[in-house]
């Protein structure tokens, strides 16, 4: 970081712009060199692990899903156990449109999925976000269970427990077909959507709106006291988060070419929560680290030793809850600071 003052910064009129903290604040949204790493890795993955493109696709979908949860949970502090409700809303939107041959164009389908999930998020957010703590946890859980039961009950349209198999998705831009054997299109398409959504989320988080969300998470009373429209901010954030989760669900339906009730499962909601916390919530890149670590371990361990994987995951969660509450990223940050401090003193 440069040591020169930032002369054009708006805060100079106040006179504290030269303070290191102020400089950090002003520059906090600037791109850092390592922020290119995930995308370089995703590009390299395409060429190096060409046989694992299916895994890479589901990894990126999980990252997007975890990012959407990060917006609600990590930034706005809305503790939810029902985020799969929006994932499922998006997945079923894409699935129903494709299965009944109403609409199969992938990109517009994703937009519709986002809209449908946003609608669910908006309506449920309007009523749920009045509550806190256990009540909020229960209400999000029940909303998700309600959607799952509805999908189960509307058997004639959704296929009930069996779901909607072999969806026919139109080629991207009318050219690139989704081939289940060679998932090149799925991978690159998912990568592009993830990148677009990430740029949006990053911009949102460093905007004044994102700042006020952090404020609400850190001190609700104070935000009320300074006149911030807390409820409205929370509902808007919840809706955006739902829309992004809906996109993730839509992608899941498109790339797998099926939808079933597992999209709305408590398992899925708990897993994404675990992934986000494992990586570190409220830090934008926690979703990437958590999803990569979790999915890689799951891919190689869970198939061979499912019970050992469950036991290990349980132990890991206990350790994270007790000792590493900011996840892998938080832990590495602490270690890095200690290392720097030791170097500075010696």
């Amino acid at each position, binding site marked *: 970081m440069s040591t020169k003052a930032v002369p054009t910064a708006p805060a100079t009129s106040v006179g504290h712009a030269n303070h290191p903290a102020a400089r950090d604040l002003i520059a906090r949204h600037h791109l850092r060199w390592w922020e290119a790493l995930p995308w370089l890795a995703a590009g390299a993955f395409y060429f190096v692990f060409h046989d694992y493109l299916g895994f890479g696709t589901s990894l990126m979908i999980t990252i997007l899903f975890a990012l959407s949860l990060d917006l609600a949970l990590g930034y706005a502090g809305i503790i939810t156990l029902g985020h799969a409700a929006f994932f499922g809303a998006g997945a079923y939107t894409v699935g129903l449109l494709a299965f009944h041959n109403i609409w199969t164009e992938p990109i517009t389908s994703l937009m519709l999925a986002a809209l449908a999930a946003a609608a669910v998020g908006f309506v449920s957010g309007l009523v749920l976000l009045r509550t806190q703590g256990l009540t909020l946890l229960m209400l999000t859980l029940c909303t998700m269970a309600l959607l799952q039961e509805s999908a189960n009950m509307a058997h004639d349209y959704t296929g009930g427990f069996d779901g909607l198999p072999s969806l026919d998705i139109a080629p991207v831009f009318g050219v690139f077909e989704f081939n289940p054997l060679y998932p090149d299109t799925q991978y690159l398409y998912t990568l592009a959507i993830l990148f677009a959504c990430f740029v949006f989320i990053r911009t949102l988080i460093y905007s004044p709106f994102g700042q006020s969300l952090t404020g609400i998470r850190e001190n609700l009373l104070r935000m009320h006291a300074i006149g911030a429209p807390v409820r409205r901010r929370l509902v808007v954030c919840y809706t955006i988060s739902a829309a992004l989760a809906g996109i993730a669900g839509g992608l899941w339906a498109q790339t797998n070419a099926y939808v079933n009730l597992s999209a709305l499962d408590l398992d899925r909601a708990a897993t994404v929560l675990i992934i986000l916390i494992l990586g570190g919530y409220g830090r934008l890149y926690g979703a990437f680290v958590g999803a990569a670590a979790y999915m890689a371990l799951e891919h190689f361990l869970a198939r061979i030793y499912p019970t050992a994987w469950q036991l290990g995951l349980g132990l890991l969660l206990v350790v994270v*809850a007790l000792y590493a509450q900011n996840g892998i990223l938080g832990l590495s940050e602490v270690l890095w600071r200690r290392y720097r401090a030791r170097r500075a003193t010696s």
Partner: protein
Amino acid sequence: MNAAIDFASILLGGLAAGTVLFIVSVGLSVTMGLMGFVNLAHGAFAMLGGYIIVLAMNRAHFGFPVALALGFLGTAALSVVLEQSLYRRLYRAGELDQVLLTIGLIFIFMATLTILVGPQSQPLQLPPELGGQINLGFMRYRTYSIFLIGVGALIVVAIWLVFERTRIGAQIRATVDNRRMAESLGINVDRLFTITFAFGSGMAALGGGLGAEFLGLDPQYALKYLVYFLIAVSVGGLGSVVGVYYASLLLGTLDFVLKLYLPKGGTIFIYVLTILVLLWRPQGLFGRKSA
């Protein structure tokens, strides 16, 4: 006359299911009310207790009462160990960390039981005197269901008496109402919590064993019924024993009736009802507004 008998038998079946739900959930309600600790692993304690009870009968051939006592004591003892070593550190932490810890514990319980006992369902062999049917005067009904309803009623009366008439009950009520004030008055809240936590886990174990006959008992138990336990507690009201009793009976009966008449997706009404109740009274039907 037939309709009345049908109605009575459905009601009794529902009440028996609700009683099991109550026995499992009551401890969760009290511990959550006391400490505000979101203990998702409560169902795992019920599962563990159920396993101890069923295995003690099937493999070690103990009698039903002895097995129940073993399940209660074993689970309560383990819960104290976990409470002292793990839960205690997160009392002041956020709900998120508590959720994470207890989900982790659920996984550990599930995996351990799968490894030690196996993934298959464990059947409960009822003792012969509880097996058949009993004559209620106007109809015959399963003895075990009637036994369950009776046990549940006894338990709620006993817990109510402890809550209202003993010193420790008064301390629990005071702490649920206002923890800081209770602490200032010299109530040892930590010790109180350990005692109630152990007792609540033991009750959950009893519920797991008593309900194994119709809820089944396999390593998925802890997750499968978690939503139901949480609904019973949040609808009944944190820290309210009577509230959880009513909520459990209502939930059990509703579930029983819906599964009978609307086997496909009938549970949707339970979720709708829960959402409506919680929106109307976020603290639950019998809960007190938090200070």
